[in-house]
């Protein structure tokens, strides 16, 4: 692509057929096409309906507790000794992460479409909990698909979902993690397509999911933008967010994309190090391909089989990434880096001790890179880290790594 073409790019994708440049699209079996097209039509109509957004905003305010604060991390800032670090506190949302912004929006869509049954896939369990929560809130039947491996890793969240009335279905196929849970959810959807709404938890899947999940998550960036102007008196210089599928990151980034002076960094899960191959960083070390309904960067082997990924954080342990991120990477509008398990764990402890905030292991990746970056910057520089979730769910994992039995 020429420089002139690049400069004339806008960031208002996807196009009508659901593409962000060469990425995105609709790659599903024929049985699901009608369901995807129905969702597309309904969303197109509702997304310009003020009443729909009024209801959504009202749920966010009174049920989720928004707006979430933009918090100046004073001790973390002085510890790093450089840029001013602000945290966007998605960890303070009801259910403890940004995931609920999306599940509320999609559950309202499901209700509007007259679907009585919702299904969801989950890795760490946060999206499963957020789905089960809104299902309880709206009185919908809920089935959550979860890899057998993850069910063991995230036992408290499994119990939480059950308390909320959801049926948690253990997935034993493939690598028994998030990607296999997504396969199984797609199979369920194809089978029960008449009465079922599939709440995808991230900005991936067939069009229009990457678009609608982004739209629901953009509340993060819209708030952060207004809060910056009010609290700092100007826009921030740099935004940092972790990227698994990438919904919290796109939610923060998207409302700033046209602000050329704002730099953006997505932090993928570097696992045991990019050079070991044991990570979940397709934007750093993957190639474009097709999985779960869209074309995007993927971790695959030479024969095109999807590789097993590794991350200390179950929520980032996914071999793909949202197609809009793939496009933003190619456009060089967002820079994508990786933080290792060890760096994330270190940041987890630092933030906990310095600010009294226990971050989710996913968010700890963003904190890790943010701390490193802040240290090299002038103190006039303002940096916002998206604290996408709280770490209560991770304390068993962290204790286990440190050889402590709770």
């Amino acid at each position: 692509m020429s420089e002139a073409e690049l400069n004339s790019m806008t960031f208002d994708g996807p196009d009508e057929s659901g593409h962000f440049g060469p990425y995105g699209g609709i790659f599903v079996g024929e049985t699901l096409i009608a369901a995807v097209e129905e969702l597309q039509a309904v969303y197109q109509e509702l997304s310009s309906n003020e009443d729909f957004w009024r209801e959504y905003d009202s749920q966010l305010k009174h049920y989720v507790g928004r707006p979430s604060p933009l918090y100046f991390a004073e001790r973390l800032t002085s510890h790093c000794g450089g840029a001013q670090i602000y945290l966007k506190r998605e960890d303070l949302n009801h259910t403890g992460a940004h995931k609920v912004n999306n599940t509320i929006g999609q559950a309202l869509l499901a209700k509007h479409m007259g679907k009585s049954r919702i299904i969801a896939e989950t890795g760490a369990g946060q999206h499963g909990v957020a789905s089960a929560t809104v299902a309880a809130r709206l009185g919908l039947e809920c089935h959550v698909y979860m890899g057998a491996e993850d069910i063991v890793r995230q036992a408290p969240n499994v119990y939480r979902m059950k308390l909320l009335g959801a049926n948690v279905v253990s997935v034993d196929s493939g690598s028994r993690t998030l990607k296999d849970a997504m396969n199984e959810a797609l199979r369920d959807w194809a089978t029960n397509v008449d009465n079922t709404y599939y709440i995808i938890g991230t900005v991936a899947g067939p069009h229009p999911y990457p678009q609608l999940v982004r739209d629901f998550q953009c509340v993060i960036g819209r708030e952060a933008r207004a809060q910056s102007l009010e609290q700092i008196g100007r826009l921030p210089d740099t935004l940092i967010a972790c990227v698994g599928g990438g919904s919290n990151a796109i939610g923060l980034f998207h409302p700033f994309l046209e602000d050329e002076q704002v730099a953006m960094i997505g932090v993928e899960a570097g696992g045991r190090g990019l050079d070991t191959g044991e990570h979940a960083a397709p934007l750093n070390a993957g190639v474009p391909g097709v999985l779960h309904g869209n074309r995007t960067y993927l971790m695959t082997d030479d024969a095109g089989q999807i590789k097993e990924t590794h991350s200390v954080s179950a929520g980032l342990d996914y071999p793909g990434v949202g197609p809009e991120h793939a496009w933003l990477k190619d456009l060089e509008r967002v820079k994508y880096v990786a933080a290792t398990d060890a760096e994330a764990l270190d940041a987890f402890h630092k933030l906990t001790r310095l600010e009294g905030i226990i971050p989710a292991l996913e968010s700890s990746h963003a904190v890790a890179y943010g701390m490193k970056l802040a240290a090299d910057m002038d103190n006039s520089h303002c940096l916002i880290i998206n604290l996408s979730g709280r770490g209560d769910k991770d304390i068993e994992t962290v204790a286990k790594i440190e050889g402590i039995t709770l």
Partner: protein
Amino acid sequence: MSRIAAVTQRALQKGSKLLIPYLVAGDPNLETTKKLMHSLVDCGADIIELGIPFSDPSSDGPVIQRGVERSLAQGTSLADTLQIVNEFRQQDQVTPIVLMGYLNPIETMGYEAFTQRAVDVDVDGVLVVDMPPAESTTLHQMLRNASIDTIYLVAPTTHPDRAVTIAQHSTGYLYYVSLKGVTGAALTDHASVQKNIEALRKLTDLPIVIGFGIKDGDSARAMAQQSDGVVIGSALVARIGELTGLDAISLEQITATTDIIKEVRQAVNSAS
């Protein structure tokens, strides 16, 4: 005329129905797949659908998933799948082979390299489950230019306008998915199949075969009565699963495995 068109025309002219078994390449290993394919032809298969193994077969039910896992455990790739066709062709230049699978292994190999290799080994048709016509432009054109048939699915949920487009994209035959669900699910709603096939007949002159949910002679007969043929996958793959773990697979074991296709052949013939 393509090999698929020739076989189809011959069958339909004599009032016979098409029988299309599906198996996964490399399940339980490459050598056995090749023997199974020859045996399927002996049992009366008209066309063979050879599955390209993929790690994330999200349109397939548990039986075919396990077949794919057995194949991947042997390290079977798309290149190996094409090599099986190559070796099969050394003995059989008549039976059409349709490769069926998911897009990512083909993307990874590259559309051009895949098409060239498919031509070299004499593949007759390609069906990519997760590549609807709207996303298929480049690969579709390359396959067409190479005179390889492009086969697409029509589902019970497919809108009639869309079915017309799909039929226009298809050559060889149109594959009607008999049920809402994944491969190997139980087919219960025969009436809606009949209604949908009748509607499809008005939209296309292509032969229509029915797949998903055909598990034995009875279900094959019922579906063959309404269409030009049947695809049978999971029931065969389940039998192939019983061969796993054997040190050496005898010819008797091969023929015992493909026996179900003989039974289905008879049932399908009785529907003609």
